[in-house]
């Protein structure tokens, strides 16, 4: 009798554990949830979104296909981070340098999508940055000045927004852990509202100077109804990294 209770409880605990761990992992095509508004177009991505499961490494379980110098730099950054004074470190963002794309998307701060006729605007809380994705058919400008956030254009493939971003300056870390990038960085994102409160983004990194081949990772974001994007002034209290 006693043993039966114990077994039942242990089974329940194990079930809870796996349920919680895997609930937010890979999402395949899903029917809209019951909360979904029937009038909501699947192309309506608007809302305040927040990373569903935050990890400092954008690839939580593996290393990307590094070029040798990039692997060495990644290792060096990791070493410097654990040995530096908490006030100083190699990460550029505590010095208020923009995190760039894709890192800005996966920081543990919310961001909002606002839909306009010719563009989709992302308002990021982290460092109060704005990203514009032009969806009116224009291409990237011919002579781009390199930037932290790059230049983004998008198009619809069904209900998936495909965003192409180039024009990077090579100074950004791809994730908080310190994956290197170069000016050859080309980011492709496939963004889709898989259900009412989940946004999925398949991010492909193509930077042949730093990686031997393109690699892709899926990130999920959760709708945060009632949240508003707040002011974030990095320079005000820039003590830590």
């Amino acid at each position, binding site marked *: 009798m006693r043993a039966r209770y114990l077994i039942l409880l242990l089974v329940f*605990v194990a079930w809870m554990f796996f349920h*919680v761990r895997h609930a937010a992992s890979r999402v395949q095509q899903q029917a809209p949830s019951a909360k979904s508004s029937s009038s909501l177009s699947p192309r309506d991505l608007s809302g305040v979104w927040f990373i569903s499961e935050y990890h400092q490494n954008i690839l939580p379980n593996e290393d990307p296909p590094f070029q040798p110098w990039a692997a060495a730099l990644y290792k060096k950054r990791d070493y410097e981070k654990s040995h530096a*004074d908490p006030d100083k470190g190699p990460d550029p963002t505590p010095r208020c340098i923009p995190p760039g794309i894709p890192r800005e998307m996966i920081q543990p*701060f919310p961001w909002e999508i606002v839909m306009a006729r010719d563009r989709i605007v992302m308002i990021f809380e982290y460092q109060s940055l704005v990203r514009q994705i032009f969806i009116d058919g224009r291409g990237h400008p011919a002579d781009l000045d390199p930037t932290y956030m790059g230049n983004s254009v998008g198009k619809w493939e069904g209900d998936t927004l495909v965003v192409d971003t180039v024009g990077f300056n090579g100074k950004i870390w791809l994730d908080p852990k310190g994956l290197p990038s170069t000016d050859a960085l080309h980011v492709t994102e496939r963004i889709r509202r898989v259900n009412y409160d989940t946004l999925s983004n398949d991010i492909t990194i193509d930077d042949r100077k730093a990686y031997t081949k393109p690699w892709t990772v899926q990130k999920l974001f959760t709708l945060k109804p009632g949240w508003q994007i707040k002011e974030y002034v990095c320079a005000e209290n820039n003590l830590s990294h």
Partner: protein
Amino acid sequence: MKNCFTVAMVMSLALASTLLLSALPASAHHSSAAFDLQHPVTVKGKVTKFDWSNPHAFIYLDVLNKNGKTDEWRVEANSPNMLSRVGWKRETIKEGDEISVTGAPAKNGTSVMRLDNVVLPSGQKMDGQGFSYGH
């Protein structure tokens, strides 16, 4: 019989908490590598200053050490933006408050800590890293 059932339930809950906690990534939005997350410490003291500004809120605390001298601790919490989403307000901590803070100390031995939680003079416990764990 009832006691055995209670013991089994408590053990299961303890196991569940352990499993759930171990599943969470121990990392804030910036690098936590400079802090010793494996060996948290708790110190009590009097607040000398509370900085409620991004990217991190900081509590400065005068703490009497075992030699009878005062150490000034700098305690780093998450950003005010995220803390306010788990119930903090800018006046949650005030100068002169006697508080207890628990967190990961700096690996380099300085009196700097990454806050896990703080116990306020009222006895209320506040999470110092709200939403950093991907909630």
